[in-house]
Every structure is written in C-alpha cells, then in structure tokens.
C-alpha cells in the first residue's frame, strides 16, 4: 500500500510528464502567467510603497495653506492678509511664502524656485547664494561651490554660488528645488514687496483647523484654504492603484490572459480527453484524475505567482521600478532619483494570490470532472 504522500508524488510525476509532452504551449502559458503577475505585483508594490512614502514625508506639510484667488486662478497674496490671518484666535504662526516656477530653456526642465522660511535655519541662504536639489544639479551638471546661472524671460540674470546640493535621500520632495534668498527672488521675478505666493499657517490645536478655516473664510472671502488633510487626500487619490494608469493598461492584458487561460484550462482537447479515457480504462479513479489536474493547475499558477511576485519585488525595490519610469516620467525632464522604502502589504499580496491562483486552478477542474465521470469507452470514441 502506497502512502498518501508517495501517491501524490507519483501524481505530480505523471502531471509533469504530461505537461512536458506539450512543452512549448505550457512554457508559453507559464511565461505569460508570470508576466501578468509581475506587472500586477509591480504596480501594487510600487503604489503601496509610494503611498506609504508620501504619507510619511508629507505628514509635516503645512497645516493650512492660504492662497489668494483672482478670477478663479491662483493670484498673489497681499501682505495685509497675513495680519488678518494672525488675528484669528488659535493661529500660532503665519508665514508669507515665496515660491514659483522657472522654465529653463537650456534643458527644457521646470524648476521650483523657493525662498526658505524663517524656521529653516539650516537651509538659509544669503543674497547670491543657492541650495539646489539633486535633479537640478544632475541635469545641469551643477556642483557644490559652483555657480547657478539662470536667465529670466525678461532677461534678468540670477547668479548664485551653490552653497550645497540637497541629499538624494530627499529627492522625492526636493529634486527640482532651488532655494534662493528673498532679495534675489524678488529681483529675479520682478516681484514688488508686500506680496507673497501664498501663506503657510500653523495652528495651536489641530482639532481646531475646521473652525479656523471657517473664520478665515469670513475674514478673507477671496482666498482658498488647503489643509494638511486635503493634501493627504489629494495624494491618496493620486496613488490609489485602482485608478492608476498602469492597472488600467494591465487590465486589458489581464483580460486577454483570462480568455487565453480559460480557453486553455476549461476546454479539453480531444487528445487530453482520450488520455483521461485511457487512464480510467487502466484503473485510475475519478479522484486520482482530479487530483492530477489540481496539481497541474496548482503548480502552474503557484509557480507563476511566486516567480512573478519575487521578480516584481526585485524590480521595484532593487531596480527602482525602472520599467515604470517612462510612464511616470511623462514629459518632465527632471525625474527624481529616489529609492522607495521596501515594504509589502500582506493583504494586497493575499488578494493578488486569490485573484491569480484560485481562478486558474478552479477553471482546470470543471471540464476534467465532467470528462472523468463519463464512461471511458464513450470518452475514447
């Protein structure tokens, strides 16, 4: 009497030999299956890691940002608005911020020029000095101690000594930044005194944000208020993987694969039906045949799932999701050189397992069961 374990091993041996008879077709199936899992798992791991990263780093974004709206568009914020905001009870500090965009014709990239705030002592720059992000430094070949030279559309020249280059570690938020002094900023953009790009407001008690926004809306009816939770929500929807283009693109591929796999798994060829007939005629049980097919479906789908997921992990975290870069880059010249914090969401992985392994294994079973319960003589005819 063979032990159940040995029996299953014989069944696996037979299954693999049967798969080997149609080697090309089955290898193709395994390759496509692995590719589908790889694309899905990469998108999932990337979205989950970047969502985690953005949530972690933007946790200390300004509690409340106040923008002036002119004709429904972002306008300059007059300095007297800062006083009105400071007068609201519960507001700790109000800081007028200066930041804007600069299109560099030399390389076709957009930079974000910014004046560091009062609190940013370690990033403070004097007139004629600049701190730049790694992307800006990389794209123009700028180095610490070198000179930052920018020419505005109206011909104003900004020449600043590069005090330092921001670390690669913070590239995800600072890649295109150029921090310059207020004097240089106002002169370069020909911006009069007494106006700001917007204002960052810090609030004593975070639970009062809604009330403070309510009061500020009355004090500044023309302004728009963006809270920290609004920023979080914006990024939450941005990185929601279900809305991602990659998943939308992958959906077409998954559908094509589903049709292919269903056709392969559920439709039995005459040759396969004959094989089952012979197995039954030589004494195999229906349960043996079903177990053999379960092993076939299970080994193919589990193998594809494991291989696809491991390759996806390597792609996203060891090769910085290089295959997605062209999609994410869009038309931007500056793309941050960032590494994502490796993390795996076990629940998402389990969902991927359920969506990829179980349907395929189940699809192989139904036609086999139908054939296996039929009389061998009838099947072979």
């Amino acid at each position, binding site marked *: 009497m063979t032990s159940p374990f040995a029996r299953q091993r014989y069944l*696996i041996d037979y299954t693999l030999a049967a798969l080997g008879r149609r080697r090309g077709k089955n290898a193709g199936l395994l390759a496509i299956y692995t590719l589908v899992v790889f694309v899905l798992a990469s998108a999932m791991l990337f979205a989950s890691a970047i969502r985690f990263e953005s949530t972690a*780093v933007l946790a200390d974004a300004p509690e409340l940002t106040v923008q002036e709206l002119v004709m429904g568009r972002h306008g300059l914020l007059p300095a007297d608005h800062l006083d009105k905001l400071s007068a609201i009870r519960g507001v700790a500090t109000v800081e007028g911020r200066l930041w804007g965009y600069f299109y560099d014709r030399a390389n076709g*990239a957009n930079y974000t020029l910014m004046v560091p705030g009062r609190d940013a002592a370690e990033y403070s720059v004097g007139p004629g000095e600049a701190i730049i992000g790694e992307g800006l430094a990389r794209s123009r070949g700028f180095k610490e101690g070198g000179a930052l030279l920018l020419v505005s559309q109206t011909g104003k020249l900004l020449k600043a000594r590069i005090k330092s280059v921001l670390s690669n570690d913070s590239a995800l938020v*600072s890649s295109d930044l150029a921090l310059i002094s207020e004097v240089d900023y106002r002169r370069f953009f020909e911006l009069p005194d007494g106006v700001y790009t917007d204002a*960052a407001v810090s609030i004593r008690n975070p639970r009062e944000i809604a009330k403070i926004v309510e009061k500020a809306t009355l004090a500044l009816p023309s302004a728009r208020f963006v809270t920290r939770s609004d920023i979080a929500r914006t990024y939450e929807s941005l990185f929601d993987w279900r809305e991602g283009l990659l998943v939308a693109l992958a959906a077409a591929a998954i559908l094509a694969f589903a049709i292919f796999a269903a056709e392969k798994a559920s439709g039995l060829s005459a040759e396969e039906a004959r094989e089952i007939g012979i197995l039954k005629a030589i004494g195999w049980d229906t349960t043996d045949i079903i177990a053999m097919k379960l092993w076939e479906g299970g080994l193919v789908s589990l193998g594809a799932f494991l291989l696809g997921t491991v390759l996806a992990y390597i792609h996203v975290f060891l090769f910085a999701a290089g295959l997605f870069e062209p999609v994410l880059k869009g038309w931007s010249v500056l793309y*941050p050189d960032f590494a994502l914090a490796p993390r795996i969401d076990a629940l998402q992985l389990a969902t991927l397992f359920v969506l990829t392994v179980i349907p395929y294994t189940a699809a192989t079973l139904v036609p086999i069961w139908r054939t296996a319960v039929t009389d061998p003589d009838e099947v072979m005819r």
Partner: protein
Amino acid sequence: MRRSSLALALVAGLTVALLGAFLHAASSVGETAARLEETRHLVARLGLSDLTLFTEARYTRHPAMADLHTPFQDHPMAFEHFPSGTLVPPPAHLPGGELRIVPAEDAR
C-alpha cells in the same frame, strides 16, 4: 532526480525567496526610517506640500496647490497637454461655485 522532487524544490525555493523579500522589507525599516525622517524634516522646515514626481506643469508638480481651472488649463473644455495629467486627477478638495437659474421676474 524525480520530476516531482525538482518541481517541489522549485516551489519551495521560490517560497523561500518570497519570505526573503518579506525579511528584506522588514530589515530595511530602520535604514529607511532615518531617510524618511530627514525628508520629513526638510518638508516641515521648508513647508513643502508636494512630491516632485511630475515636474512638467504646475498642476502636476503641485497637485495639492492646483487652482480651480486645473482640468481646463487654457480655456474651458481644453484638452489635457501632458501625459502625467492622466496620472494626476484634479484635487478632490477644489471649492466650486454654483450656477443658479432664476425665474425672469426675480431677475428683474
């Protein structure tokens, strides 16, 4: 070597590799925590609000700060210019005006 031994060894090897990925992720927590802390510090000090993923347009560079007309950059019903616009939905929190139609006698 029996085919079944090879197949089971392969599945076991891949399972170990997947567990290895979990371990790798768990072991890099400390290393990435320091990097995230530094970035967080920069965000707090400079009051940054957005990621530099898409730098080609202001509404993709700073989606959280985008203005009311983000979806229609140049004129009403304008088509999206940039590929990244497909990946960056308009912010969920944009305030909206209201279009009201009043009967003719009220308008007078």
